[in-house]
């Protein structure tokens, strides 16, 4: 029995099942040699023109590139570079419609040719035999060669095959109608192709190389036979014209009688198939150093005046190809990339050609009719007869329609090469291939999702595990913590803290008592010291600072009070006579306070100084001072606060009293003719006011003691009311000088404290001009005091509230004034 190689050498071919015989239409485009086209206006070079990953972009917008210069650098798996097809400037790098039925945008480099067509530096190799395997593979890789038969599989991957290759099969079949690109290439460049074959032989050292050419290309067969004469390892095999004998698996079957098992690649059975175009590109890359920047494209169809083959630069827009060959479109013109059987209609002609584009078909409506309506399957089984992969197309069709993907897999859907033979023969015009394509995409998506789900699950579980671990660690840490620090260490920490504290205390000129307290506290803390002492320390320091600030403020206030007193000193002589009544009352109020404080001697000292002045005021001031002294001695914040409050109150009263006296004094001086009666009245008024003020102050006192913001608010409100009254008083006074009674009998709408105050104010107003004036001036200091009181550390909010209250009060005052206007 003859060996397989002998059989092949004798010219035996093994027909594959099925296949169809569509009209070739190849003569149309073989009448003239391959033309060169004028440079297009722009070139749209898609970064992805092959199966695999994109290369890494190494040029940028605006850059000048030379012909053959690499635009991308291969990175990662199966990525091959693309090159500038001509010299020019990169005017854009952006996603452009791609050569795909969807025309989904793909990142592309748009080059504007400069017309010079300057080559970059080329490195042709004359002695390829001297190159090592890896060097040769690298040249093929860097030249960006990808399968030019249609699939665009990176050639360097095939060339670097790790499996033993018995047969190198050269695919020169070109079975699809209309396409003659390989045919013309073989006729014109047979030597180059054979040189490419020999390079592949060098790489793969196959036992035999078979060039398969259909018998409808006699010129090509002759040319190839002539070119391959010298190499006895190359056989040119003529195969019968059947569509789709150009399919990889079909060609292997025809030439060697072997079938590629389901799910494996030809290399698994020692076969490797290369397209003639690819081999020519390898030859160009090695012997001329030119990367893959152009290819032969058949431009044909009834709407093309000069159908033929052209050397088209990669990235040339299809529109340019059509225009150059004379294109007169018909209505509803279709432009197909690829052949009529496996090609796809392009959504736009503004797409650059890619490495796998072998044909542009622009048919009119007669030669490639629009598919009619799909009719019901009549189960004629013509599709099964035509199927080159021995599948059951009608069965697959039904499963695809009902989305039974498992059954599709059982029926080997993925062995379908989508040749379209079944759809071609279908009498019911069922677009069978489309159904398979959809189903395939669907299954692939499901598989991808399954993989993704698997990964998500893994990640989810990993995360869960991690969280659990972290939690456990945290718990362990907590458990270990107390044991970690020895008692000695704790003691050290506590000591250090105490030291720090005492230092800071010293700095703040605190008494030894405070230090002692701090030390005591530190001691107390030391036994169970953890991380907390730190915080408490800080808090204490902060409290101390606050205290200091408060004290400072008080001192300042006191000084102010003293100043006032000094002032009062001057006027005291006059005031004493008038304000005795007031002083009495104030003294009464002060006595209440004095009861709380029992450091009387100090009182006396101050009283001596202030003797000339109104006694009440002096007493009050003294009390405030004394309170402060107590507070300092105690260094207890609560006492301090109380002291501060008391001081503030005292001050307020003192001021009020003094001013009232002063005012009255002035008033009396001004209005000398006013008799004693009026003075008496004023005094009475002053007394009333003083009482009121004291009350308000007391309220404030309480509030402060509670240190509740609500009370602050009340104080603010009171202040606002006071101010409103003050404002109202002079104005109304001006208006209702004559109509005291009317103003007096004004209805009081409010029911709260403020209304009471208002009423009082109103009554006061009715008294006299002088008193009105005094109201004005009297209440202001109270005001300021209230503000001072509310100046406590956390008074920001309160200030705001006070401002609001003031605004309200102002509004009320206005209203009252208006009412007063109306009345008068």
């Amino acid at each position: 029995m003859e060996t397989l190689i002998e059989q092949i050498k004798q010219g035996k071919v093994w027909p594959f099942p099925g296949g169809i015989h569509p009209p070739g239409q190849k003569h149309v485009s073989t009448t003239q040699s391959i033309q060169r086209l004028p440079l297009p206006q722009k070139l749209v070079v898609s970064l992805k023109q092959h199966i695999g990953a994109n290369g890494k972009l190494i040029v940028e917008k605006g850059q000048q590139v030379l012909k053959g210069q690499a635009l991308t650098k291969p990175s990662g798996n199966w990525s091959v570079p693309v090159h500038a097809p001509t010299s020019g400037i990169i005017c854009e790098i952006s996603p452009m419609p791609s050569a795909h039925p969807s025309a989904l945008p793909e990142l592309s480099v748009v080059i504007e040719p400069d017309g010079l067509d300057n080559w970059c530096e080329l490195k042709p190799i004359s002695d390829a035999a001297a190159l090592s395997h890896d060097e040769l593979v690298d040249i093929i890789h860097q030249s960006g060669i990808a399968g030019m038969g249609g699939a665009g599989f990176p050639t360097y991957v095939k060339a670097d095959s790790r499996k033993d290759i018995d047969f190198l099969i050269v695919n020169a079949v070109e079975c699809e109608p209309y396409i003659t690109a390989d045919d013309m290439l073989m006729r014109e460049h047979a030597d180059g192709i054979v040189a490419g074959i020999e390079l592949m032989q060098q790489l793969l050292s196959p036992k035999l190389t078979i060039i398969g050419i259909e018998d409808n290309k006699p010129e090509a067969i002759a040319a190839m036979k002539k070119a391959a004469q010298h190499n006895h390892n190359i056989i040119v095999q003529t195969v019968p014209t059947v569509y789709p004998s150009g399919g990889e698996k079909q060609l292997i079957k025809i030439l060697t009688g072997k079938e590629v098992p389901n799910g494996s690649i030809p290399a698994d059975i020692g076969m490797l198939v290369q397209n003639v175009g690819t081999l020519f590109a390898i030859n160009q890359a090695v012997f001329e150093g030119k990367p893959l920047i152009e290819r032969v494209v058949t431009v044909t169809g009834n709407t093309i005046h000069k159908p033929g083959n052209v050397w088209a630069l990669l990235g040339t827009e299809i529109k340019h190809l059509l225009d150059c060959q004379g294109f007169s479109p018909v209505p509803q013109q279709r432009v197909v990339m690829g052949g009529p059987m496996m090609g796809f209609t392009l959504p736009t002609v503004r797409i650059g050609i890619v490495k796998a584009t072998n044909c542009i078909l622009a048919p009119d409506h007669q030669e490639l009719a629009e598919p009619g309506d799909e009719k019901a399957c009549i189960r004629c089984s013509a599709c099964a007869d035509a199927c080159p992969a021995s599948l059951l197309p009608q069965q697959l069709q039904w499963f695809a329609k009902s989305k039974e993907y498992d059954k599709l897999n059982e029926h080997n859907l993925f062995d379908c090469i989508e040749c379209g033979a079944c759809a071609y023969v279908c009498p019911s015009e069922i677009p069978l291939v489309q159904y398979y394509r959809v189903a395939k995409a669907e299954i692939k998506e499901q598989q991808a999702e399954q993989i993704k789900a698997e990964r998500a699950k893994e990640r989810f579980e990993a995360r869960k595990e991690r969280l659990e671990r972290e939690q456990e660690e945290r718990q362990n840490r907590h458990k270990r913590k107390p044991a970690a620090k020895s008692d000695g260490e704790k003691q050290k920490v506590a000591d250090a803290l105490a030291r720090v504290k005492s230092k800071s205390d010293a700095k703040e000129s605190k008494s030894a008592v405070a230090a002692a307290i701090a030390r005591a506290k530190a001691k107390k803390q030391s036994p169970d010291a953890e991380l907390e002492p730190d915080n408490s320390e800080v808090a204490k320091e902060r409290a101390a600072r606050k205290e200091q600030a408060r004290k400072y403020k008080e001192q300042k206030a006191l000084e102010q009070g003293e100043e006032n007193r000094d002032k009062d000193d001057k006027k005291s002589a006059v005031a004493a006579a008038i304000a005795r009544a007031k002083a009495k009352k104030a003294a009464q109020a002060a006595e209440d306070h004095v009861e709380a404080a029992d450091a009387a001697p100090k009182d006396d000292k101050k009283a001596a100084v202030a003797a000339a002045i109104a006694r009440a005021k002096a007493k009050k001031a003294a009390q405030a001072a004394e309170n402060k002294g107590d507070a300092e001695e105690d260094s207890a914040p609560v006492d301090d606060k109380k002291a501060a409050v008391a001081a503030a109150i005292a001050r307020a009263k003192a001021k009020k009293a003094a001013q009232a006296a002063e005012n009255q004094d002035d008033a009396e001086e001004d209005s000398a003719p006013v008799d004693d009666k009026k003075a008496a009245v004023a005094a009475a008024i002053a007394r009333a006011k003083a009482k009121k003020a004291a009350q308000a102050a007391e309220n404030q006192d309480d509030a402060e003691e509670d240190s509740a913001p609500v009370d602050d608010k009340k104080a603010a409100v009171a202040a606002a009311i006071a101010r409103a009254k003050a404002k109202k008083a002079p104005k109304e006074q001006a208006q209702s000088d004559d109509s005291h009674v009317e103003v007096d009998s004004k209805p009081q709408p409010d029911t709260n404290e403020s209304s009471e105050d208002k009423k009082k104010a109103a009554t006061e107003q009715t008294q006299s001009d002088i008193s009105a004036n005094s109201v004005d001036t009297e209440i202001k200091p109270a005001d300021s005091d209230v503000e001072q009181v509310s100046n406590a550390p956390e008074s920001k909010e309160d200030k705001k509230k006070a401002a609001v209250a003031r605004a309200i009060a102002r509004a009320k005052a206005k209203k009252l004034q208006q009412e007063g206007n109306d009345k008068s």
Partner: protein
Amino acid sequence: MTLFYALIALGSLALVFGLILGFAAIRFRVESNPIVDQIDTILPQTQCGQCGYPGCRPYAEAIANGDEINKCPPGGEATVKKLADLMGVEAKPLAGGEQADPIKTVAYIREDECIGCTKCIQACPVDAIVGATRQMHTVLIDECTGCDLCVEPCPVDCIDMLPIKETKQTWKWQLNAIPVTQVD
């Protein structure tokens, strides 16, 4: 007497075969995938919790214990169908009345609005968000399951669920669609 012989003979035969069968049952036992694992592989593993269980595995366990099979919105009708086949029950429409064929989405963080609070990182069941405190966060699109658990915790609402962009790999022929052609 013959009756006894017959009984003894048959009885001993039955005993021998019984022993053989019993041995074979143990020795050649077929290890079948536990039902929970099978259900778990059908579920989409988004870990979104829309079924009311904290993840896909707990829901798989619940289904194995008799819970409804139509509580998985991300899986859509396809998942319900598969579960129905596996469990031998009738396929039902989705419980929430969701779309039969849900649109796949992925989270997208508007990065200039992100304040770096790490809340979304803690919420992500598959660790598909990277970032650090006060640093901008971003989503690993390939790892995102589109569960939208990260959307709610975001204090500045800077996370959008965007439909996955169609690529040439995911593109499908539209069989009954009106062909769209660009006019130029």
